[in-house]
């Protein structure tokens, strides 16, 4: 949907992911979208170099968020929120409506 604007489909998916969940790590995103971690990392690196996302190391995991100091973040998020409304429900269910609330350690699924 925004692929033409962003240059590739992975950027669009990463943006929707961060706009929905607030943060993410490469392996988690790769599992969600069924692509290689390398592919995600490559795009995250590109976005980080452009100042659009920022990352912080927590333990051994690098967590990515939107760069809150990106001057066009509000406008970007508005665009993403608008575009999200046009996504098919099946795609929203599959990628962007996953459980985020806590689950006690050891609790059976």
């Amino acid at each position, binding site marked *: 949907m925004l692929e033409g604007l962003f240059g590739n489909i992975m950027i669009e998916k990463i943006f929707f992911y961060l706009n929905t969940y607030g943060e993410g790590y490469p392996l988690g995103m790769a599992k969600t979208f069924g692509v290689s971690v390398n592919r995600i990392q490559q795009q995250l690196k590109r976005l980080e*170099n452009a100042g659009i996302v920022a990352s912080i190391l927590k333990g051994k995991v690098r967590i990515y968020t939107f760069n*809150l100091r990106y001057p066009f*973040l509000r406008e970007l998020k508005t665009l993403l929120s608008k575009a999200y409304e046009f996504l098919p429900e099946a795609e929203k269910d599959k990628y962007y409506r996953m459980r985020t609330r806590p689950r006690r350690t050891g609790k059976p699924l």
Partner: protein
Amino acid sequence: MKIDWGHISIKDLAALVTRQLKRHGIDALIVGGACVSIYTKNKYLSSDIDFISHAALKDISNALAELGFKRESSRHFERKGCPFFIEFVPPPAAIGEEPVKEKAELRTRYGRIILLTPTDSVKDRLAAYYHWNDPQAFEQAVMVAKAQKVSIREIERWSLKEGHKEKYKIFVERLKKKIVKS
């Protein structure tokens, strides 16, 4: 003039880099922690100098190579023996959602440097505190505000626009506190 890279000050390095870039027709603005170092006379010492430039990184890289700086990652440069590294953060020059409108200019023995004004330097540090709760950035904002003449009215206007009234209050309270010497 022979340069002692091992003991160079951050201000002199900033001037050398600015001069070198200028020779190649490249304008660059110093932002971030280096401004804090310069404005506080190294009370806080940054380990890098952040520049913002609209020039292509390839052109920047060519210019800095003549000073011995090598591009080590997509946006940062290092020189053997030099304690500071140089980073080119992606443009535009902005503080929060606003573009940088005013720039400060300082003279050094190696020429002029262009950097954020003291007021914008405080806002720049506060942005990191407001958005990421970074306590170091908060302390740096306080340091600059105490060391330089800044416009509190402008900082307040910007803080409210950014939606951080409560954190701005904490900043102002901290400025009012007297330093207790033990």
